[in-house]
């Protein structure tokens, strides 16, 4: 007999001690319907239980087209994503909210590509103290969200490839760090770098001009830039960045150079200063961006068209704090207004390079910087406009919104 050998059936038979031989066919149907209804209710309740924790959200499209920038504002259980149009810096439109695990903000990938933003989030309900998050893509035209990956390390921001077809991120599996390249159209993942020693580090850097993946490796012996190319099976260590500390690595839009901050000693104090390197991996010797200007520097970034390098500088002695950007062989400088203290940290240029987004700190030094507020700086006039003074914001970048 069917099920006679089934342990499930036997156990159930013992339990119920059923005697079903006289049940008529109509009642069989009744019982079957009842059972199906029970199953359906069960499935429905399970579905509700399983999916009720997913965040519900609404989407508010920008009322008018035109360029502007996107940023997020932190809240303990969710982050708000805002759009501020270039036509009116006072207008901040709340596009949507992203729920997250308490106290863990979202981590944006810098840049807006194909009308989409990418970000990491530690989802609500995930109380894990380990920093595993999710990688999401948000379509700014429709508000649609797509979950791309459920294994990224939320401590390391994802990076777009130059053509915007792929995202690079770090993940950790059983203490093995891996850098992954995710092809958006096919959801194909390729692991292009592995670090098995949990005490050492891997950070995605970006895509070079020939499509190679560059990344930063941190060893006890120093910090190195490495390359993985399609034609080679083994990665190549290109050059040493630093023996000390380095950070804020950034590849130029053409994929041929990189800048970063590195600590240097001056008068028994340490400062972060900007270094520049070619990405050709041939006897590369990174060199300081400013040979003689020994000031503390912040957040080197590239402009999208001219590929000017932009840094923030902190006042030392008579020199005022401000923003410095390369102009051919020289540097232009926009200083803070006379009545302002603090310093600027560049974040992103507008597409036409007319405006620079900065985080402007009101404190006196890096050791006690105060709060970073979002400012817009007009490149031509040097005029500054405060957009948001929330204690914690993150900037995605500029959006053409056409």
């Amino acid at each position, binding site marked *: *007999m*069917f*099920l006679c*050998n089934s*342990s*499930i059936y036997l*156990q159930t038979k013992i*339990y*119920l001690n*059923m*005697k*079903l*031989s*006289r*049940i008529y066919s109509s*009642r*069989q149907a009744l019982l079957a319907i009842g*059972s199906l209804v*029970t199953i359906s*209710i069960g499935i429905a*309740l*399970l579905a509700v239980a399983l999916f*009720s924790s997913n965040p519900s959200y609404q989407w508010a499209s920008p009322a008018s087209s035109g360029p502007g920038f996107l940023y997020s504002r*932190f809240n*303990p259980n969710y982050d708000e994503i805002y759009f501020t149009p270039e036509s009116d810096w006072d207008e901040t439109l709340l596009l949507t909210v992203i729920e997250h695990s308490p106290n*863990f*903000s979202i*981590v944006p990938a810098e840049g807006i590509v194909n009308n989409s933003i990418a970000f990491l989030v530690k989802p609500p*309900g*995930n*109380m*894990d*103290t*380990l920093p595993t998050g999710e990688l999401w893509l948000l379509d700014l035209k429709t508000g649609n969200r797509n979950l791309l990956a459920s294994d990224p390390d*939320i*401590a390391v921001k994802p990076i777009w490839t130059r053509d915007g077809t792929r995202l690079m991120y770090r993940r950790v599996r059983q203490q093995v760090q891996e850098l992954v390249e995710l092809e958006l159209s096919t959801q194909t993942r390729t692991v292009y770098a592995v670090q098995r020693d*949990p*005490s*050492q*580090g*891997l*950070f995605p850097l970006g895509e070079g001009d020939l499509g190679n993946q560059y990344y930063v490796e*941190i*060893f*006890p012996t*120093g910090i190195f830039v490495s390359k993985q190319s399609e034609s080679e099976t083994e990665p190549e260590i290109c050059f040493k960045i630093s023996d000390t*500390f*380095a950070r*804020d690595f950034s590849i130029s839009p053409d994929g041929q150079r990189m800048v970063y901050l590195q*600590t240097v*000693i001056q008068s028994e104090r*340490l*400062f972060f200063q900007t270094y520049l390197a070619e990405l050709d991996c041939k006897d590369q010797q990174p060199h300081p961006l400013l040979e003689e200007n020994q000031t503390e520097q*912040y957040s080197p970034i590239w402009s999208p068209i001219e590929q000017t390098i932009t840094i923030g500088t902190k006042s030392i002695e008579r020199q005022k704090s401000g923003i410095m950007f390369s102009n051919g062989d020289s540097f232009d400088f926009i200083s803070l207004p006379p009545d302002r203290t603090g310093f600027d*940290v560049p974040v992103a240029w507008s597409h036409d390079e007319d405006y620079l987004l900065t985080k402007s700190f009101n404190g006196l030094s890096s*050791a006690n*910087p105060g709060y*970073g507020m979002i400012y817009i700086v007009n490149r031509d006039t040097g005029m500054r406009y405060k957009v948001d003074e929330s*204690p*914690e914001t993150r900037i995605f970048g500029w959006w053409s919104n056409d």
Partner: protein
Amino acid sequence: MRVQKHGYLGGGQMISSSHLTKLILVLSLVALHLVLFGASTLTTKTYACAFGAHRPAAYEGGENRLLYIHAINAAANNLLFPQDARFALDRLEQGTRYNRYVSGGYIPPTLIKSIAWVETKMTMATKSTAWNGLGDSVISFDCGHGVMQVTTGMINPLGENSQPSDAQALISTHFTYNIAKGVKILGTKWNNAPQISPIVGTDTDSQTQILENWYYATWAYNGFTGYGSYSSNHPLDPSFAWPRSQYSCSGTQSHNEFPYQELVWGCIKNPPTINGSPLWSPIPITLPDLFSTEVNSALSPGNFYAPYANMDIKTPGPWHTDVTPANFLQQEAKLVGQPTLSVPPRSHTIRMNSPAAITWVDIPIRNSGSGLSTWRARSSVGFLVVTPPAGIAPGDNLTCTAASCDTTTLRIEVNPTLLPASYATGVVSIWSPNEKNTPIEITINVVADFELTFPGSSKNTD
């Protein structure tokens, strides 16, 4: 469970209508069981840990956190369980790397309070639990338990027969033991120096009374992870923003922006407030100066290897001590007390004479003494399932006013698929790890013999 394949799937054997009915009935029972009992399990986002998928019950004190603060003040001075090696604060070492000597058992209480706030906002139970009530113990995905998010020794069940140990039950359910264990672990992190941890305070004899000297031990409480590593707490790690504002402990800044020890330092300086009152007196604790050549050199990636001798640093100045008094004797009855477990009727019969029959019995558990009684339950047979496997019963001297206080119950439920016969008997033992009484035994008789009938049908008289 062994799964067998049946003929109709591969052999084309026809199924009779009665067999189909039985199959549907079995599936419906499974579905019903999942709906009634399984859904909560599926949505309980807990991995294995000491108690598996079940969260033990815990007592949550008042919103003012006074109970927890008293417990911390006592634990910081090793006054809670000095004779219990599982929960006593070890004597701490101090001195320079090559002149280390044993000192007293003392940790600045404000440091512990700040850690408790960063970990759980100083709560013992899940967010849905009412103040002065009972609820599920807060357990993180990496098995951090309770106020202090104790992870050490809480990953797997450590008792007999792969069951949780009594110590694990106490840590999960009882805030006093949880705090004592967290403090003990912090002391262990301190004592890891100089063998496997660096020292702060080469110029101050690394005195335990100085808050700033706890920088590395606090770092290690969350994970002594280096520059560039996974889950790094290194203050110059590239994953943290630079420059970054100081942590204000006000809820307006995310945790992933800061290394762990900066979160703790931020809350010491800026204590959280409850209804306008700060939880502790602010202390302007000093972080190491990352821009000094001494500190920067000490923290360099090349120095990050045991015994970390090159990472030893002076006490960041100006340094501070913490003189919070411990009034343990006044609070002892609430923090520890003399709990007495009380379980009325010792014998129950569960009759499962129809599919609609109630398949469980709820056993009220009381604490007729004072303080908190952690209780545990274990079944002698597989077909009796106890839920929760551990819990807490407050004594009359503890405020427990929430509705949840009325449901201090142990549910003993019959798993029908494991019943050996239509009539079966099992015993459930209930005991308290923080009492010295012998276990209480509850006898459960199960009667499962019945006939299935439907309205209008003929009763089977075979």
